[in-house]
């Protein structure tokens, strides 16, 4: 079925919105905020797509999903066909449909968005992926081609999972090595349940296992075995590094080592990964004050502050030194946070954390900022307003001011080029300075997005394939020439 509506009619349809838990309800639970589009809404939304001759939306998607192609299949009610179309380019559609910053990627360039609101591409992606999951319609691709080569993938975040899936589909023997006791990287320990249910991640990981990918958890490459040992002793022919940027930065202000000060990573890991919200049924504790402050303006900050609210904080402040428009967090998340009663203190910079006699946080001292000249990033640089210091009473402070790559592998792998920022240096096809070592995701970008990590994993898989084929070809020509 093709779209029966004329473009002018399509443009008249308003953008459809997800069904959501009310703010009042959702701050009392950890269930998903958004239920997505139902079939009826998805069908209306799909009708809005103009089926452009030159679909610029595809250019906006880092993994180049055939967007009009899958939307057309939705119109035909072939939802499984649609999700399979997406899966040609993206093996984790249920995840991307939820957390991908679509508003800055595919949707920002959507032609319909020029005059009207763009097509809700991400929500449609989520709809078909959820439909397939709910109705148990996924079929594991049959791998017919088997290549007798072993690839090690280090880290099971979106970069590693994608690289592993792509290589397995090509027929390689793939093993993932993960330092933590469970897979998913930030998808599991960082992004909270209310944005990405762990059940969905489990299903996606399980599908990757079904492709024949082996997963070792509790394996820290650089400690349990070095990268060179994987190549020389374990017999891997190539390695993909997707170890992310998991080491938290701290501001370096006085009082940071008081009890009650957390990095967002520790806070979210305790709550999401170790399930501290269920303490004492689970053993990992977390402490949260009546008043809490989160420092930062990214997705991590937003997740931390909303998590704190759900754990019972009566006042949850978000302190950010620039203004609202400069906040790197996803618009949808900022909106959700606002609805949940998070108090935004913009153009505010913490200068000191103050402790009580028991070394617990009792307050944070901040300073007002104003926007000055643009800096290297093009954003206007915040400068302190003299005499604007004020004290905010809080018992918990969570710092979400960015992360850098964990240095273990870089420090234990000779010949691997690393930048000053600690990221592994790669070329435009994810090759590192070592011929059989490839890398991508936050490890090479230093804190980016799920979809960019996936893009890197996918390109690396193609490049690893090329590399291993050329090694094979060289071997063959060497024997022929003998």
């Amino acid at each position, binding site marked *: 079925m093709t779209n029966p509506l004329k473009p002018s009619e399509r443009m008249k349809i308003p953008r459809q919105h997800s069904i959501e838990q009310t703010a009042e309800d959702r701050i009392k639970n950890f269930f998903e905020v958004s239920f997505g589009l139902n079939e009826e809404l998805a069908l209306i939304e799909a009708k809005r797509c103009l089926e452009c001759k030159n679909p610029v939306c595809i250019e906006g998607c880092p993994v180049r999903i055939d967007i009009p192609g899958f939307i057309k299949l939705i119109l035909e009610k072939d939802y499984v066909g649609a999700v399979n179309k997406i899966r040609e380019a993206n093996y984790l559609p249920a995840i991307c449909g939820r957390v991908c910053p679509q508003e800055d990627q595919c949707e920002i360039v959507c032609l319909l968005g020029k005059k009207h609101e763009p097509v809700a591409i991400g929500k449609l992606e989520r709809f078909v992926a959820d439909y397939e999951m709910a109705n148990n319609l996924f079929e594991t691709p049959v791998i017919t081609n088997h290549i007798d080569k072993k690839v090690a993938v280090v880290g099971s975040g979106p970069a590693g999972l994608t690289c592993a899936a792509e290589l397995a589909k090509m027929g390689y023997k793939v093993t993932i090595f993960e*330092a*933590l*006791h469970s897979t998913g990287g930030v998808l599991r*320990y960082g992004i909270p349940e209310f944005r990405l249910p762990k059940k969905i991640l489990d299903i996606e990981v399980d599908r990757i296992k079904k492709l024949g990918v082996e997963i070792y*958890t*509790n*394996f*820290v490459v650089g*400690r*349990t*075995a070095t990268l060179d040992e994987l190549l020389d002793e374990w017999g891997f022919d190539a390695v993909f590094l997707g170890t992310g940027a*998991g*080491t*938290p930065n*701290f501001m*370096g202000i006085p009082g*940071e*080592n*008081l*009890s*009650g000060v*957390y*990095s967002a*990573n*520790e806070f979210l*890991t*305790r709550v999401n990964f*170790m*399930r501290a919200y*269920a*303490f*004492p*049924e*689970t*053993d*990992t*504790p977390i*402490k949260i004050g009546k008043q809490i402050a989160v420092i930062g303006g990214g997705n991590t900050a937003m997740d931390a502050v909303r998590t704190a609210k759900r754990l019972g904080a009566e006042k949850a402040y978000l302190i950010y030194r620039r203004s609202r428009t400069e906040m790197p967090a996803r618009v949808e998340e900022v909106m959700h946070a606002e609805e949940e009663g998070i108090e935004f203190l913009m153009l505010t910079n913490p200068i000191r954390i103050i402790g009580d006699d*028991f*070394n617990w946080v009792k307050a944070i001292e901040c300073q007002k900022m104003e926007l000055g000249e643009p800096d290297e990033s093009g954003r206007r640089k915040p400068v302190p307003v003299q005499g604007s210091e004020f004290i905010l009473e809080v018992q918990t402070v969570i710092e979400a001011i960015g992360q850098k790559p*964990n*240095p*273990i592998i870089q420090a234990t792998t000779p010949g691997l080029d690393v930048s000053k920022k600690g990221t592994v240096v790669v070329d435009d096809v994810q090759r590192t300075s070592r011929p059989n070592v490839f890398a991508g995701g936050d490890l090479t970008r230093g804190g980016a997005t799920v979809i960019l990590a996936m893009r890197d994993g996918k390109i690396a898989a193609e490049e690893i394939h090329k590399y291993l084929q050329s090694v094979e070809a060289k071997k063959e020509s060497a024997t022929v020439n003998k």
Partner: protein
Amino acid sequence: MYKIVEKQQLSDIITKLVIEAPLIAKKRKAGNFVIIRVDENGERIPITIADSDPQKGTVTIIVQAVGKTTKLLCSLNKGDYVLDFVGPLGEPTPIHNYGTVVCIGGGVGTAEVYPIAKALKEAGNNVIGIVGARTKNLIILEDEMRAICNELYITTDDGSYGRKGFVSDQLQDLINSGIKIDAVYAIGPIPMMKVCANVTRPYKIKTYVSLNPIMVDGTGMCGGCRVTVGGKMKFACVDGPEFDAHEVDFDELIMRNRTYVDLEKISDELYEKHVCKLEGVK
């Protein structure tokens, strides 16, 4: 899943477990630790690798039951499994031939200093051991330490065995006796390490301690294990756990380790109740 192949009670509250973990057994060096999670709802806790047997593929840990997780771990038996066991973590101890090294273990800290003392001995040092505890039956690894130390001193707080007093008193005596000490390793409760650091400071004897902040991942990902050393923030799990004792802010560490005392108590009480119930059933 990692199998417990041997269990031995070293004292009422200290248990030795030998666990099957061939990769870790092969790679580990003195000073390394593992992170253990006993079961699905369990906490991740760090425990030093006391010894290993690369041939058998086993790792030895020595655990003092102080709270829920360590009690649970100590209650496991030969043939049981722990769910997660990851390592070897931390920077290994740099082993040099210093000359004469004093290796001090306080309480369960003896289990942590033992592998270091052993490695230092193998590197040709003259190793003087001091093992201390509150009372006689808490002294562990005496025979093992005696076997590798050139001299071994025992201290107990109550005088029930060896010299009455603290390990630091014995250290002070050694210094006073005029022998040349080139380095000191002191591992045990934080106050003990702090006092040992204070003893050696005036003599400028290089002193190392192994810090035990609260950890979660043990791989540098959470920053929960941060300690202040020489005025700088360090992550004990990747930068340590060993640090120059004269640079460590011990008071801060003591405070930070108290963060969850009330919650740990709840967890512990629930566990005790559960154990009582089980015993009632028996």
